[in-house]
């Protein structure tokens, strides 16, 4: 399968990329890792007439701890996350996800920013970033702005980015002592999208959950948090009853469709079980770093 025709631009700076976006409007798409966009173009599900390849833009590929947050350049390859073992120790939820996104070959090209900006609820980073309460940094002709992840996803393949804005950096707040996270994904085989997956980031104070964010992958039309699951966890001890309540709340709140990966009913039950397991694992990790 051959993609449709398009003009190819390869800017070398962020400003040039933004200028190209501004000049070509909605006909243009950013080409980052291309691991979602190129297959979509081959299926003719996407037919942009201009591709702006940002792979030659300097200064978008980095992973470093800043004061209070982990900064991930939008063009950072998934491969880099998977192999930054030392840094990832403080971000176990992200480390979990890094090993299960697509497959190792795809991870050598795929980018963190692309996985998020594509706004596919089947992708893994949206739920991870929702659970972390991450901040997206975008650059446009008018300068830089910071978008809380809770305001970022507007719908299927739809984000708060304007057509002439480029996602440049992802900021994950540094987890405090007593915080832990986990990402659990059920997939039919390596490389497939999740049947369902759950991201949990929580904090334990004494014996109770003091804060929790729970987000779900591929069980809703847009990336989503489960407010019900979070409410069921916060203020409670992590008893079987608490976990079950959280799992049931998320299962009720999500909106999966029946497809080749399973029936909606099956996926809801997966969500119930995965929320329980992920919350338990997150709590174990939280207790390991009081």
């Amino acid at each position: 399968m051959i993609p449709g025709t398009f003009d190819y631009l390869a800017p070398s700076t962020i400003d040039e990329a933004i200028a190209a976006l501004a000049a070509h409007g909605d006909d243009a798409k950013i080409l980052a890792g291309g691991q979602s966009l190129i297959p979509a173009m081959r299926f003719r599900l996407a037919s942009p007439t201009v591709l702006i390849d940002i792979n030659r833009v300097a200064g978008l590929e980095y992973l470093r701890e800043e004061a209070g947050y982990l900064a991930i350049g939008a063009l950072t390859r998934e491969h880099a996350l998977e192999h930054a073992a030392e840094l990832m120790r403080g971000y176990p939820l992200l480390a979990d996800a890094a090993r299960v996104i697509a497959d190792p070959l795809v991870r050598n090209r795929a980018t963190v920013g692309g996985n998020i900006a594509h706004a596919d609820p089947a992708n893994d980073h949206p739920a991870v970033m929702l659970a972390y309460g991450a901040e997206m940094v975008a650059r446009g002709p008018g300068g830089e702005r910071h978008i809380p992840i809770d305001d970022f996803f507007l719908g299927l393949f739809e984000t708060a980015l304007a057509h002439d804005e480029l996602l440049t950096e992802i900021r994950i707040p540094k987890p405090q002592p007593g915080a832990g996270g986990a990402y659990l994904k059920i997939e039919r085989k390596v490389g497939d999208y999740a049947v369902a997956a759950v991201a949990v980031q929580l904090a334990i104070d004494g014996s109770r959950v003091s804060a929790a964010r729970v987000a779900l992958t591929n069980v809703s039309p847009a990336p989503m948090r489960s407010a019900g699951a979070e409410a069921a966890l916060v203020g409670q001890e992590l008893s079987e009853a608490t976990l079950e309540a959280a799992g049931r709340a998320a299962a009720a709140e999500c909106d999966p469709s029946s497809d080749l990966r399973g029936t909606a009913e099956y996926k809801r039950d997966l969500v119930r079980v995965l929320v329980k397991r992920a919350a338990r694992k997150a709590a174990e990790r939280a207790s390991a770093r009081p």
Partner: protein
Amino acid sequence: MSKHTISVTVNGETRGGEVDSRLLLVHYIREQLSLTGTHIGCDTTSCGACTVLLDGRPIKSCTMFAVQADGHSVETIEGVAQGGNLHPLQEGFWEQHGLQCGFCTPGMIMTAKALLAANPNPSEDEIRHGISGNLCRCTGYVKIVEAIQYAAAKLREQPEEVAA
């Protein structure tokens, strides 16, 4: 549609050409360079049969445009044997029966080559994780893992070949 003149180092040689922006790297390799050892399996970014090394990293050449490879280095299965001698990986697949139909083999070998360059003594789990993006529909992977272990052992005995 834009046309672009590119220059790519393929198996150590500088290769050029004019490409349409939409030409996929795998089609450039197979049709313009006539290097047909790189296979097209699934057409859906699933199978890894088209794996080549881009600057040493295994990638799916069906999911990258040829124009993006301009200025980069590409290694295909044709570049693996040196001086008429099989690479230890090729020898391993031969000795350990690491293939039946052989369709996935070039991609497997390219992925394994990068794996062993980064980790000369991988555990079985690390090998299985490393090749998890390359699908084989014949062997069930046991023999493929053994082939890679064979090559790893041989390369460790002959460290000068690691660089090659």
